[in-house]
């Protein structure tokens, strides 16, 4: 088979892949950009997440990524010329603490957030209850709230990025799985069942599956996978206005614009299955009721499975690998909420060789160099 050639090959048509491709065209409209995906529209983690975005983080770099992305979400319809809109809802995000330790972490983080003008505030337990009366008052110590955080439809955002990329002549192919990548004489060859694709540069956006493509090239990245299951309820009256996360319950709660509530509880598991497991709902339901007694009577409509990427410091991995021209963008389960900023930064790195200060801290090389910092406001164990 004759090879298809392109300037940049992006592997994975999720948030990072499509956003990077779109931004590459903003930097250089004449470049040939191709995005291939082994699945179909939104079939990976991009179509399976909790749909929330927040600027409330404890590390500068996460705040910067989210802040830039939030500004993009607010104008996404215009920026991407997508009249349907992305179902943006900025009703805030409430991060809950059920122990003094958690509250201390929130307190320390809010000081950093204020340095970047994130309009977050510290709330006592009574103020949290007033904001969400459906909460359980017992053991609740307090929380932080940011009114500019919110939710949007991941399906709409991904559709907007897809349509905008195609409009800019990015070639997006679904059902094309890259089996193997090789580099010879400075050119990459990606093998697919439809034949080889040759590219000068390659960006891997297959998230937790990135090591599978890197390993044969002799590049090791410490990325593993965490299977999660999510729950969506039938539409119900508004009872959880802001998005909630509880640092102790490891649950995120997001009532969508259409009334359904999405719960993503995290438990320690291994593997990369997206199957629904028999014990999940009876495990999750008591935890959810303990956090939010006011939803006990709401009916679960459906569950679905998701795999998120896990890195040793639970930070994204963004940058060039030890092989020149081969880049990775691993989300650490923040692909939706950071994709506008990550796409822009990856595009300037790939197209112009410019490394954003944020990317410098998230490079694939940081693990060997031993330069890692743990994000204190994670919603999982």
């Amino acid at each position: 088979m004759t090879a298809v050639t392109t300037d940049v090959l992006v592997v994975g048509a999720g948030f990072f892949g499509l956003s990077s491709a779109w931004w590459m065209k903003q930097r250089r409209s004449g470049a040939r950009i191709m995005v291939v995906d082994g699945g179909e529209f939104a079939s990976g983690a991009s179509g399976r997440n909790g749909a929330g975005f927040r600027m409330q983080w404890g590390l500068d770099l996460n705040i910067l990524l989210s802040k830039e992305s939030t500004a993009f979400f607010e104008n996404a319809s215009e920026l991407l010329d997508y009249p349907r809109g992305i179902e943006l809802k900025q009703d805030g995000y409430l991060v809950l603490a059920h122990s003094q330790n958690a509250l201390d972490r929130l307190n320390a983080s809010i000081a950093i957030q204020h340095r970047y003008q994130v309009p977050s505030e510290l709330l006592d337990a009574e103020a949290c209850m007033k904001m969400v009366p459906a909460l359980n008052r017992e053991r609740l110590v307090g929380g932080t709230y940011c009114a500019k955080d919110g939710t949007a439809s991941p399906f709409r955002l991904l559709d907007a990025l897809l349509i905008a990329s195609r409009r800019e002549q990015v070639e997006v192919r679904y059902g094309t799985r890259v089996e193997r990548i090789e580099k010879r004489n400075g050119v990459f060859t990606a093998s697919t069942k439809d034949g080889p694709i040759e590219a000068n540069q390659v960006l891997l956006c297959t998230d937790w599956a990135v090591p599978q493509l890197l390993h044969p090239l002799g590049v090791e990245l410490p990325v593993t996978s965490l299977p999660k299951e999510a729950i969506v309820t039938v539409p119900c009256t508004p009872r959880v206005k802001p998005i909630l996360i509880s640092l102790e319950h490891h649950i995120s709660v997001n009532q969508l614009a259409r009334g359904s509530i999405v719960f993503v509880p995290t438990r320690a598991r291994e593997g990369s299955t997206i199957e629904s497991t028999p014990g999940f709902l009876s495990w999750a339901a008591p935890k959810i009721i303990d956090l939010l007694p006011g939803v006990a009577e709401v009916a679960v409509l459906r569950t679905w499975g998701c795999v998120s990427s896990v890195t040793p410091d639970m930070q994204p991995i963004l940058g060039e690998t030890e092989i020149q021209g081969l880049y990775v963008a691993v989300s650490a389960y923040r692909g939706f909420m950071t994709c506008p900023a990550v796409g822009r930064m990856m595009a300037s790195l790939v197209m112009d060789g410019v490394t954003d200060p944020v990317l410098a801290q998230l490079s694939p090389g940081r693990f060997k160099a031993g330069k890692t910092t743990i994000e204190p406001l994670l919603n999982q164990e």
Partner: protein
Amino acid sequence: MRRSVVVVGAGPAGMAAAIEAAARGCEVTVLDESARPGGQIYRQADPRLSGTEFAEPTELSRKKRLLRRFDEILHAIHYRANTIAYAAFGNGEIHVQVGDRTEVLKPDAVVLATGMRERAIPFPGWTLPGVMFAGGAQAILKAQRTSPGRIAVVAGCGPLPIVVASQLTRAGTRVAALASLRSPLAILRSPAGMWHGRDIMREGLRYGRSLLRASVPRLTGYIPIRALGKERLEGVQMARVDEQGHALPGTTREIACDLLAINYGFIANSELAAMAGARIRHDPDGGFWLPETDDEGRTSLPWLFAAGDTAGLRGALVAESEGAIVGAAAASAVRTVATSDALTEAIAARRRYSRFARVVRQTLVVPVALWRTATDDTVVCRCENVLLSELRSALENGHHSLNAIKRNARPGMGWCGGRMCLHSVAVLAELHAGVAPGKMMTPRPMARPVPFAALAQQKRAVEP
């Protein structure tokens, strides 16, 4: 310890399967979402209701006979009414909701006898109050012994519209028209098949005669193309269709009515089989997505069986005889000592009624052109309010599998989980983008919504 068989559904197939498995010494549990056994076809009214039933005496005697036989084994089985099976898993677990609690069952074998639902074909105005499934109208007649409308138009194909029109007239409704896609006399082309269903044919003729007596106007070759009205149904626009199902210009007529009862055949309730991971086949007019089964109801999973319309649309009489055959097969699959009581009667009955069912099936074949009555502003998925135009734009953007279409345009993401619309989405994809319906959408728990409180109160049955 006795080996256990769980039967899901207490219609004709489920009741017959339970009777047979119990007779073979299994510990049988029957789960049914209704308050009383009977399923859709033998639905029973609340015992406190007085008044007569509107069905033919021969149908009523079949119903009574099977319900009596089921009643006779009630003491020997666990019959659990108001119990909803909401999930099935590949490890053999069946999860059920009973009121404010849930339970996990893990029997040695499961027989799915979950029947079927009616097939909706979207057309302009079909979501107006007053537009119903013909079977839905009949369920009201059966359960509440009252009619859902004063002036009705009954339409569709196959035998059900004839039966429902007749029962509506008996309930005092004026049937302004009985429209059928093709002449019911087409069935006369298969005299051999008819002979096998002669008793059912006699019933059909009696229903037909009562329509003649009530002077119900017949519109052969007509379909409803638009339901009229603002807040609720006020009338219907009918049009004549050609052999391929295309509406013919200049043939439309309007009929005033407050009830439009339609049946275009059926879709099998195969979600639990798919959720458990059984292999699924595609049969557009025989129930759409069906678990693959052999003659004795075995699916691709060793512990899972399917009987009656769940395994392919063939009607109540096949369901009853097949239920017995599959109940016996499930029993012998889980018992170490096989009892081989003769099932000759059930096997002969199934063979005979299957021949008749094949004839009836021809009357239920719906040409895909009927989906052309939907216009760009017609709702395709009523839970998520997805319009045909939105579906078409998803198709135009290259999203062709049902999963991709769902994620892009949201049909099937709402309350009913796609039970109402997914077959239409598949047909519309074929019609507008030339892509074959292909794979069913990935089936996920839940088959029915269940509150968190009930999920938190979960009991695990003792494992055998």
